[in-house]
């Protein structure tokens, strides 16, 4: 499970839409996919990440507005040699905002995408591994 806060200062809200700020649905798809990619990364011992190969049926049930805090949930449905199938949803204020029924991600080695040390560091920042280590050893 992950969290993404939606703030008025995000500049995409200026264009989407002029006068009616709504968080773009595809960025929720991206958020769910990024979380799935991190889940692959941890499960596969920090060696591979995922890239999106297909998305089946996404429903945007309710607009996400500035000030909402999105909770993102993702589940891996199945694993095979080349990738995974996953599903996910986002919620805010106790309401389901977006449901992604099934998506496909293919594995890719981390070192092809970025410096593995940087990826590992990024992971520890996202999971708040660091502060916990420093403040309560």
């Amino acid at each position, binding site marked *: 499970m992950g969290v993404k806060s939606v703030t008025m200062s995000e*500049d995409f809200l200026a264009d989407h839409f002029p006068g*009616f700020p709504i968080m773009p649905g*595809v960025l929720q798809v*991206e958020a769910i996919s990024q979380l799935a990619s991190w889940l692959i990364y941890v499960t596969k011992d920090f060696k591979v990440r995922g890239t999106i190969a297909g*998305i089946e049926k*996404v429903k*945007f049930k309710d607009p996400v507005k500035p000030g909402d805090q999105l909770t993102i949930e993702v589940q891996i449905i199945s694993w095979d040699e080349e990738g995974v199938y996953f599903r996910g949803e986002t919620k805010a204020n106790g309401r389901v905002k977006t449901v992604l029924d099934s998506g496909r991600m293919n594995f890719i080695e981390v070192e092809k995408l*970025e*410096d593995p040390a940087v990826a590992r560091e990024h992971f520890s920042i996202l999971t708040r591994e660091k502060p916990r280590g420093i403040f309560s050893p």
Partner: protein
Amino acid sequence: MRFLFFDRIEQFEKGKEAVGIKNISGGEEFFLNHYARLPVFPEPLIIEALAQVGGWAISTTVHYRYLAIMVMIDEARFFKFVYPGDQLHLKVEITEMNEYGAGIRGTALVKGETVAHIERIYYTLFEVPKTHREKIKSAYIFSSGKFWAETSNE
């Protein structure tokens, strides 16, 4: 990050189809993280680009009285990575349209080769208050690249 994912509308037939283009520039800021060693245009943004060309075509067909807001995506497939320097051709076909909503089918091509295909995107139509119509209209004309067609030459 600005949220406009087409640079120009090349072809448009009211209520039927539209073709837009989007140049992928290495200067776009998301390439810093996506990914540090391999700049790949994020797949959901290909969906957005097709959806924006579709939304533009729908809103233009109804004279900017409605905004098309995406409510569903189905069967999106991505066949190849899209890199800086590529030019995306965004082909969109309006498959259905009534007073409540609209649907499109879209294909994205680079150099004539299909990089992504989406079988269905559905929109709900949101009535633009009269006070906002001019703003929406000018934003949509600006984004279509028609601004230049109308100001140059004649």
